[in-house]
């Protein structure tokens, strides 16, 4: 179902939405409850509980009762250089993955929109990483990066570029190597979303612009991009959140090493909570992560939307 038809339908239906009747509303409650109860009990509730935990000294397996400690966790966090270092790595990772994901995804989507030969194969290939378990993606790239049995070093040797290196254990290479994997894993969803958006842009406008002599770049800026922008913004914002919160890929690839160079905040908080049992402290980390993500996203979306008015 194309979104264009869906939109037309909602528009047409709008007048029909009358004032809700009392009986219908009771029916609506009945329909909503099966999902609402688990959402409240297992999502909204735990979230609020989690935020409360951040203000306590909750620990796993402790006999003494948990006490309120106010903002102590946050004060400790403020001075926890390890956490802020991890936070910095998390931001480098999230930006380093999200930006290439978008640019490469857009490029691939534009190519796939062209009906080139091999396009079908590329479409299939562009989907596969999306369907793979993150753990498998991590394992697969460990094989690629393997210092002896990996294909990357073998290719370097074949090309006469030296003996290669231990990518995932090198202090300088670990984070970039992990970022490449993140891009690879997230490329499909971005591409497919952008491609679907491209295919909803009005063809006629495109052709009219071409007739008027607009070059490819101009056509992209004036016709394609305005139509694509809402989808591009949405997927980029989501990608940023997902990437910042990602865990499994790096857990499998490096486990946070070498020397903490890929120590993402999620790994940090996981260890803090489930290895050391510091539930309260880890919850405080989670809160800080949410706050910072929100600020980043707000800045990003406001900036982008405002930038859109000028063009």
């Amino acid at each position, binding site marked *: 179902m194309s979104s264009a038809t869906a939109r037309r339908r909602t528009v047409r239906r709008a007048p029909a939405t009358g004032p809700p009747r009392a009986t219908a509303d009771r029916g609506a409650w009945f329909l909503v409850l099966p999902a609402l109860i688990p959402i409240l009990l297992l999502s909204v509730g735990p979230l609020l509980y989690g935020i409360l935990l951040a203000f306590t000294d909750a620990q796993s397996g402790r006999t003494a009762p948990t006490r309120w400690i106010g903002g102590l966790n946050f004060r400790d966090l403020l001075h926890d250089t390890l956490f802020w270092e991890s936070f910095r790595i998390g931001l480098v990772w999230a930006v380093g993955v999200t930006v290439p994901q978008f640019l490469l995804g857009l490029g691939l989507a534009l190519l796939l929109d062209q009906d080139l030969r091999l396009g079908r194969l590329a479409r299939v290939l562009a989907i596969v990483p999306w369907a793979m378990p993150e753990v498998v993606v991590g394992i697969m790239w460990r094989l690629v990066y393997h210092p002896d049995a990996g294909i990357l070093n073998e290719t370097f040797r074949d090309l006469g570029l030296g003996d290669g290196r231990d990518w995932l254990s090198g202090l300088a290479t670990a984070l970039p190597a992990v970022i490449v994997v993140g891009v690879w894993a997230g490329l499909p969803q971005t591409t497919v979303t952008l491609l*679907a958006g491209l295919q909803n842009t009005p063809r006629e406008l495109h052709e009219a612009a071409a007739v008027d002599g607009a070059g490819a770049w101009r056509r992209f800026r004036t016709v394609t991009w305005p139509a694509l922008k809402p989808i591009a913004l949405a997927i980029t914002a989501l990608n940023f959140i997902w990437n910042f919160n990602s865990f499994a890929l790096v857990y499998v690839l490096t486990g946070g090493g070498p020397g903490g160079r890929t120590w993402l905040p999620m790994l940090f908080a996981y260890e803090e909570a489930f290895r050391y049992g510091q539930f309260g402290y880890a919850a405080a980390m989670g809160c800080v992560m949410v706050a910072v993500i929100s600020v980043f996203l707000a800045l990003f979306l406001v900036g982008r939307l405002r930038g859109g008015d000028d063009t």
Partner: protein
Amino acid sequence: MRTRPAARAGQYAALLAYLVFLAFPLLWLLSTAFKPPRELGSLHPTWIPEGPTLANFRQAFDEQPLLRAAFNSLLAALGAAVIAVAVATPMAYVMARRRTLLARAATGWVVVSQAFPFVLVIIPLFLVLKNLRLIDSLPGLVLVYVVWALPFALWMLTGYVRAVPVELEEAAAIDGAGRLRTLVSVTAPLLAPGIVATALFAFITAWNEFFFALVLLKTPGKQTLPVVLTHFIGAEGVADLGPLAAAAFLATLPSLVVFAVIQRRITGGMLTGAVKS
């Protein structure tokens, strides 16, 4: 529109680069899975195994309880998919058809729930499930997966419901069909493909999920496939490459097959959910 030959060539070069980038890790995984240990130890690995073997697969099954893990994964994914869709469909219907405060709040939750890091959710969930004695059990994991799959399921299903013309329902009502009757014999059949696609999507996300399973399942016999796969990698990061590759390859097959089935519907569903009036 005509494209100049030079530009065309550039496009093909770019497409080729993408193909290589996307495909080479996959091919390398396959190649490693079929290589005998001798070749894996060699300093000059080749793309095509010189003496392809199935020994890695056998060894993988010997080393780790893969069948048991696959069965656990299957139960968790099936349970999560069926329950998530069963509870999400009625709610999505309300969200799509009514503009009540509740529907709007639910849409808000769908968006907000994406922004929260799992840590903030899993610690309290861990404590709650512990009180319910659902730690280290598949039913507990299924519960978590259901709630975890709900935002996306609601998002997709709301889009599918919007695509069903409300006029059809009104026509049925005029013909004298009751509300329930209309839902069952008019709306449900039109919605069925979307429901199946959503269920399959929930199945894949649950099948692939790692973090919650890692935290919640401790007994080896209860663990799901992704968790068991990480056991192939030793404490020092040393791994037996052949069996590791073989097991990883096998673990991917089910989600690949399911994904191939629903690929088109997923993207359609995401966009219809995304475009709102």
